[in-house]
């Protein structure tokens, strides 16, 4: 049984990508999540995206906190190093790893409890730092691993399995990220792989922190009537605001036949992302309009999905820190230590 046997989507494990790797090569250990858990579908989408992007598995690092969602880093890319840290602190561990070795591709997986309750501060400050990473927030409105308490993303009036209704205003990771200056903000649904995969690919190519809020239902504790994070509710209320195509560097970009307004964003590695807004007054490269649109959807109980905002001109953590292109772990010690003569000279300044 493989990590992604459980989710509905099946795939032909045989085809190989440019690196001669099959999808299977991007899979991980067997999932120990509940059958039907949205997280397993996200895992499948990540496997798909990594395979299509032809990532070098061992050049990627999988980072997570604690929770059912955070466990999933074990279920994909077994050839990558993984770091399942402590609850809510994945962003700081990833910041440190990235500071030490900027050459790796960082894939961070978190949950709504992990990122919006105990980890809210770390998520927010990782956004400010603009750490180069894909940040997938598997959002199910509850703490799954501790058996279904409301999380900070639970909507007002959403009911628990026991029938209790949530009273507090939800934290919407998308609005939060837009407010904090995130340069890549998307939302998708674990049940919508066709939408999710290109978004993940774009996020992996982004020059900074790419936040992808994925509604990922918890079948054990939050998939019932009355929940606003159930499969049924999400399917009904999802509204794709922006349709995303990811066009890798190699491939030629196809000019859209339709007259729809399309924005093409070139990622720092040369790949391009084609964004087709489904509503005229929506510009995925304008922070204010993105914010206003998502809010407006909320007011009508709609869940706006898609790559909602992207700004590829932003500076990532290393640009802000002016670090050398060589990963710091590869800078030879000789270049780091000023040596005896320098110290002897320096001593004169302390007399």
């Amino acid at each position: 049984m493989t990590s992604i046997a459980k989710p509905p989507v099946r795939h032909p494990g045989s085809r190989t990508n440019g690196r001669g790797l099959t999808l299977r090569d991007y899979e991980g250990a067997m999932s120990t999540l509940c059958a039907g858990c949205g997280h397993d579908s996200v895992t499948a989408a990540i496997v798909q995206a990594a395979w299509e992007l032809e990532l070098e598995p061992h050049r990627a690092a999988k980072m997570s906190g604690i929770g059912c969602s955070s466990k999933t880093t074990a279920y994909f890319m077994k050839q990558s190093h993984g770091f399942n840290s402590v609850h809510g602190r994945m962003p700081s561990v990833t910041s440190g790893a990235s500071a030490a070795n900027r050459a790796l591709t960082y894939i961070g997986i978190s949950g709504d409890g992990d990122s919006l309750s105990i980890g809210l501060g770390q998520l927010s400050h990782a956004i400010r730092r603009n750490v180069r990473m894909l940040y997938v927030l598997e959002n199910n409105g509850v703490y799954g691993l501790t058996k279904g308490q409301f999380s900070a993303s639970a909507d007002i009036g959403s009911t628990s399995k026991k029938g209790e209704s949530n009273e507090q205003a939800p934290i919407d990771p998308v609005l939060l990220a837009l407010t904090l200056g995130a340069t890549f903000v998307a939302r998708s649904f674990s049940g919508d792989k066709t939408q999710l995969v290109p978004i993940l690919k774009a996020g992996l190519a982004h020059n900074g922190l790419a936040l992808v809020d994925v509604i990922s239902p918890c079948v054990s504790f939050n998939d019932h009537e009355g929940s606003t994070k159930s499969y049924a509710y999400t399917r009904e209320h999802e509204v794709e605001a922006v349709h995303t195509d990811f066009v890798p560097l190699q491939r030629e970009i196809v000019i859209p036949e339709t007259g729809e307004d399309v924005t093409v964003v070139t990622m720092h590695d040369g790949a391009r992302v084609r964004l087709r807004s489904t509503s005229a007054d929506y510009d995925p490269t304008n922070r204010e309009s993105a914010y206003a649109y998502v809010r407006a959807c909320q007011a009508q109980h709609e869940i706006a999905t898609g790559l909602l905002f992207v700004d590829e001109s932003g500076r990532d953590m290393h640009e802000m820190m002016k670090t050398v292109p060589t990963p710091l772990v590869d800078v030879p010690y000789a270049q780091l230590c000023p040596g005896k003569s320098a110290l002897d000279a320096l001593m004169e300044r302390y007399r």
Partner: protein
Amino acid sequence: MSGINDFAFKIGTVNGTGSASANGLLMQAIFRMGVPVTGKNLFPSNIQGLPTWYEIRVSKDGYTARPAAVDLVVALNPSTYAKDVATVRPGGFLLYDSTWPLHPDLVREGITILGIPFGGLCLEAFEGDRDRTLLRNIAYAGGLAALLDIDMEIVGTMLTEKYGRKPKLLDSNHRAIRLGYDYAKAHFDCPLPFSLVPMDETRDSILMDGNTACALGALYAGATVGAWYPITPATALMEAFKGFCEKYRVDRETGLHNYAILQAEDEIAAAGIVIGAGWAGARAFTNTSGPGISLMQEFIGLAYYTDIPAVFFDVQRCGPATGMPTRTQQADLLSLAYASHGDTKHLVLFPADPREGFEMAVQAFDLAERFQTPVFVASDLDIGMNDWMVKRLEWDDDYRPDRGKVLDADALASVQKFSRYLDVDGDGIAARTLPGVGAKGAYFVRGSGHDKHAAYTEDSDLYQEVVDRLKRKFEHAAAAMPTPVVSLRDRADVGLITIGSCDAAVREAADLLDAQGIVVDVMRIRGFPFGTEVRQFLERHGHVFVIEQNRDAQLRSLLAIELSYAPDLMTPILDYGGLPLTAKVVVDAVAAHVAGVHT
């Protein structure tokens, strides 16, 4: 007791008024006269307007501990007049600002009171309130120069070094110094009974604070990632590291940095950054104090249980809670040694002064990578923020970082299968790989139960196998820690054990006790876990005194727990008021105890 090149004086002012530079000037001038000197800055936890003191001790014999008595007090802060005057030793002197009439609080019998109208002199000589306040400090420095026979040429040179590029400032400072100096010369017969005569005892020494020294250690150890959250008294450590990196780690052409300093959102994040960087293969560290150590507990346990190197500088301050952030203590010992819930034990280094701070900073990174575990450098406010006279720092260019057991691509190719937590050598240390090295070396770090292959487990035996290895690793580390500094005198009656910044006072106490006919051996512990030398010293003496700066005898507790040594055989001498230790505290306690025993 006092005399030529052997006395102490104290200046009481208000913080934020610029007295610091004047005090530094005095201290450095004495140092340049070749006379051993130390200064202790006793400052408040705010930015401006509260009482602050600076104590300078001159000791031809090279004693650097805080003096128990002061021969001269310069009282410039009305709000502490009474308190300050009371600290003058009988027969000592008081210097005050006679611009205003002698305040009744300043009157005391048995001491000599000298007045110099610093304020008035500056009012006449200079323009503008700000300048006048600042230069008033230089003026009292001038007065002291006259009273203590401080070499004015040296002072002049120093002012030139400092203000060379700012002629106006240079001039006003020169004049201010003169104001005080000339007035004193004119009105009192200088020098006082205790004063300075040039020596040649500081040639191979420097004046440096411990935060600067530790920062230099991190620089020389090749640390590339520093993460922190500001907190007194640790802040200056990372600021110094930044300064050194800007000087030595910036590429001439590109201006790019061979380092990354992250000011995190809090201490928890700082710890996470250090652990993430250490996992990725960088030498990473953070600097903090008590409250930060409390917040980092969870992460420390993670690094311990997952074998990740990380270096923590704990510049201890006066606890508990926020406590007294500008006072010193050694009260985090238990919090460091057993940091985090569950069964955990950690490596701790105890520097005694800035020089050792430099050396131990380097050792800390070697130990952290060799043993793949958190290492703490337990500094304190006294070491970290005061200027100490120590021997010049030295460096051996043959030094190479001990990266410990790291399997690179080639090494990996040669192994059958890589198992992250497999103890091949029996020393409890398993070889690690760094992310990115290759699929064969890939493994999954988890703070949850794991077996020796790093696989998830809930099996008792497999879980125990890993935590037993960690225990073994800790025991092996004991032999790798710096050995204690032991000084044995023959026919010694008692043994004294101490750590860190208590050293200077304890060594001075040993001499004073000797003079009283009480012969003592001294052992200063430098690392945790304790090596065999520590046990030997204990066994050699049977009963010992354990001298430390906390209320609960925490070092004594560690000795009892780790060496199974009977606590009853270890008499605590505790000093925890927040000021650097004086020899007197030790002498009195030991003498009293010895007397008690002999009656």
